[in-house]
């Protein structure tokens, strides 16, 4: 762990790996909840770092942080949410090919994994969900789409994500959800905050009518 001062009121804590970063972030939240952390305005996790901003005495806390021992296995518990997915994404076949499975096997594979919001960014409410094992890593699209519809469920690298609103994007789209990822009039506005665990359930497409199934 490296603790780097940022300006006069912030610290950037650099960790050795993504799991260590998630564990350290979870420990920060646990200690803040327990009143064992000085007042801090922002705790911003990212891929390999956690930023603590708005500290009165950052150097004092920096000294304490380096004495913490945090096991990566400590990331358990935390709030859990389910997101129902229709597996109708335009890149479903591409992801299946990448995984060397049939497209109809993708829902079972994704549904069998537990994801965790490692960090947010890009647009309000977009969570980078860790939990895709290395062997299921998928590349970003070579050409990003200029418009990805809101509610698109997507994969890139070892992350899953759901687009809170229509935006450009280069992730592989495997499905769509009706879940509202971001609603500024809701409390909390964001469905996914760092630390939340996520399971994707499979929502069956609406069945065709009987007459058509001759």
């Amino acid at each position: 762990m490296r603790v780097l001062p940022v300006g006069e009121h912030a610290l950037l804590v650099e960790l050795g790996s993504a799991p260590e970063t998630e564990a350290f972030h979870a420990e920060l939240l646990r200690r803040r909840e327990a009143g064992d952390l000085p007042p801090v305005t922002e705790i911003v996790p990212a891929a390999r770092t956690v930023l603590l901003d708005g500290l009165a005495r950052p150097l004092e806390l920096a000294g304490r942080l380096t004495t913490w021992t945090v096991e990566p296995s400590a990331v358990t518990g935390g709030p859990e949410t389910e997101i129902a997915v229709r597996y109708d994404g335009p890149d479903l076949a591409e992801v299946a090919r990448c995984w060397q499975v049939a497209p109809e096997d993708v829902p079972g594979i994704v549904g069998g994994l537990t994801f965790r919001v490692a960090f947010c960014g890009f647009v309000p409410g977009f969570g980078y969900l860790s939990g895709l094992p290395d062997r299921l890593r998928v590349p970003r699209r070579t050409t990003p789409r200029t418009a990805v519809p809101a509610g698109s469920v997507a994969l890139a690298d070892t992350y899953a994500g759901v687009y809170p609103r229509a935006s450009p994007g280069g992730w592989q789209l495997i499905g769509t959800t009706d879940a509202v990822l971001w609603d500024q009039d809701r409390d909390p506005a964001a469905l996914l905050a760092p630390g939340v665990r996520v399971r994707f359930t499979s929502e069956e497409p609406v069945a065709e009518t009987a007459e058509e199934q001759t």
Partner: protein
Amino acid sequence: MRPVLPEALEVVRAGALTTVQDLGRPGHAHLGVPRSGALDPAAHRLANLLAGNTADAATLETTVDGTAVRALRDVTAAVTGAPCPVRIDGSPAAWGAPVRLPASAVLDVGGAVEGLRSYVAFGGGVAVRPVLGSRATDLLSGLGPAPLDAGQLLPLGVPGEPPDAVDAVPLPAPPAELVLPLVLGPRADLFTDAALRALPEAVYRVAAASNRIGMRTDGPPIGRPDGAELPSEGMVLGAVQVPPDGLPVLFLADHPVTGGYPVIGVVPADRLGAAAQAVPGTPVVFVPVHGRPGPGVPGPQPH
């Protein structure tokens, strides 16, 4: 929630970019939400003080060419920030002091004579609906109200007690040259000693592409070692990023909450108002400091 007077102002002339601003919405960066808020907080606070408001009331932040609004009821207003001509129904009125707008009068906030951004406060504050506790327009993520449009109606809060007599307060003029202390880190170690030594001698200029997200600069590129890309990491207000072209970008209120270009140092927040008022072409010098001392703790000084 405090009562609101709907349709209290009518936008007659929106101006190039006039937004509703307050003290922003810090505390949501972990959800991908920028802090936003007035780029020149001292001018925003002063406008509110003059109009009889608390500092968290929303004001209008203009850009370069001001704005004009019609009062649809009697209201007190005050213009601060970038100095500019102020007119009420065509007659000159005070800048930097409370002015009384009778119902149907038009307050015209003229183009900035110096600086870029004027702040217009109204008694009771602009009372658009808050988002995550703030009424600020965030141009990066699109939270808060859209920039003003001609013909638009704006609500005001109910004014409190009439403001005490407040003397017009002189404000420092926007600087002819920006000398910005730069607290080195967190990624200064990615740059060579030679690059850091050369920095205080280098003169940059505020680039025209600057906006509420960041102050961009033109000047001598800061040498970056190859492979100075990082996984995205959290960014603070005042961070100075060095993208591959080597031209420093100073992050202002609507900055992205994370970024992947190395941050060579951070400009203390109390210097960012001056940066936000610096017109394109203004010379900029970054003076590295190795961490400013805490209270009572001696530390290295800028040279």
